[in-house]
């Protein structure tokens, strides 16, 4: 199986602070990887480094076959990052934003109407300026941009945040569909129940390092198995 992500002792600095201090990570094609960790552990930096936004200054880093240490711009068009902010132009409508970002990414066959319909943004909402959208609608719009761009690697940072129950279901279906279609997903989340149900594997980041790899996802969903209680007659 092809590896979409291959990090070996990867180091990223934010100023002089080592936000990633020697990360080892391999993500095969088609996997949905859950990245866990406390606030400030390095989850967001890891996703931004995989997107080619944060320079990797030490170790080895390859994403989709591109060497991030040599040319991190090369991978950008092939990845999609859903960050904390929606990356929408407030004065443009939802449809305008989708049109601009899909053209910018040179999406081969952008189905804008399909992307908006999939995220429940068709009809009246398509013509609403982004500034007038609710937080959840902005999140859906950001996801619709990803759908229209159709990246090979989806990087989702707290993807369930701000979404209502229906939006969360749509997101979960979307993740399952894109991975079934061959894309790879790396998601960082504090909502472990929801995210773990999507993931095929999880890793934990702490202090800019991986503290374990390949934790059993079922443990996260169901909690670690407890010994059977002993009844004394």
């Amino acid at each position, binding site marked *: 199986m092809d590896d979409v992500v291959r990090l070996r002792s990867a180091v990223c600095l934010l100023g002089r602070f080592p936000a990633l201090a020697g990360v080892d990570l391999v993500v095969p094609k088609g996997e949905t990887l859950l990245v866990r960790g406390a606030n400030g552990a390095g989850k967001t930096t890891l996703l931004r480094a995989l997107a080619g*936004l944060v320079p990797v200054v030490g170790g080895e880093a390859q994403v989709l076959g591109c060497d991030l240490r040599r040319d991190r711009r090369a991978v950008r*068009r092939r990845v999609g*990052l859903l960050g904390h*902010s929606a*990356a929408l*132009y407030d004065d443009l409508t939802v449809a305008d934003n989708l049109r*601009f970002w899909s053209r*910018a990414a040179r999406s081969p066959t952008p189905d804008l109407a399909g992307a908006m319909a999939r995220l429940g943004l068709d009809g009246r909402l398509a013509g609403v300026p982004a500034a007038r959208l609710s937080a959840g609608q902005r999140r859906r719009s950001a996801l619709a941009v990803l759908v229209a761009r159709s990246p090979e690697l989806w990087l989702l940072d707290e993807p369930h945040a701000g979404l209502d129950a229906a939006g969360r279901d749509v997101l979960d279906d979307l993740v399952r569909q894109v991975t079934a279609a061959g894309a790879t997903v790396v998601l960082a989340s504090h909502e472990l129940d929801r995210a773990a149900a999507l993931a095929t594997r999880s890793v934990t980041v702490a202090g800019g390092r991986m503290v374990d790899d390949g934790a059993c996802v079922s443990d996260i969903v169901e909690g670690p198995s407890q010994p059977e209680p002993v009844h004394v007659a």
Partner: protein
Amino acid sequence: MWRDALLVAGKDLRIEVRSRVATNQVAPFALLVLVLFAFALDPDRGVLTRAAAGLFWVAVLLSALLAVQRAQTVESAEGTGDALRLSGLDPAGIFLGKAGAVVVQLLALELLLGVGVVVLYGVDPSGWATLAATAVAATMGLAAAGTLYGALAAGSRVRETLLPLLLLPAVAPVLIAATRASEAALGTGGLDVASGDWLALLSVFAVVYVAFGVVAFGPLMEEQ
């Protein structure tokens, strides 16, 4: 690169049309500057006429600051700057697109200010070809330098106050050359220098800053 430039310029202009910041804030501000100059120098209308070219270009320069500031602001809010980098657009194309959108806005503003100068300052318009060439060359230089310094200041927390400090000294040659070329066209200047020399200076300035921006904009975006 050109395709990306057109895409970005179209997006920026659409944002300005929808937000109406240029029409409801920048243009009134520029007209207000012209009116305040008229108030200050009103007792002697001859001074206003003689100084019209300089006052016009000072008003354009101050308005250019607002336009450049605005062009950077839309890329610093809500993670759109990161998204632009992720989109894979050519940084040179982004620079040309953003500068091009500022050029279009400033040229429209200069047309409006030109009418204001004729009405308020009693200038008799002449030398249209020279005035138009001056406006195009000076505006390209202002927009290119402004977009470049705007990107340089964008990474700073004090970008709003830093930009004028960086930009105004850098574009002083544009102010001087555009004023002299306009004076030569209007016949109000004291210096006996042909407008062609000033136009050449403006063109060199514009070419240098466009070339510099095409090369430097990518690294500046990465630093933000």
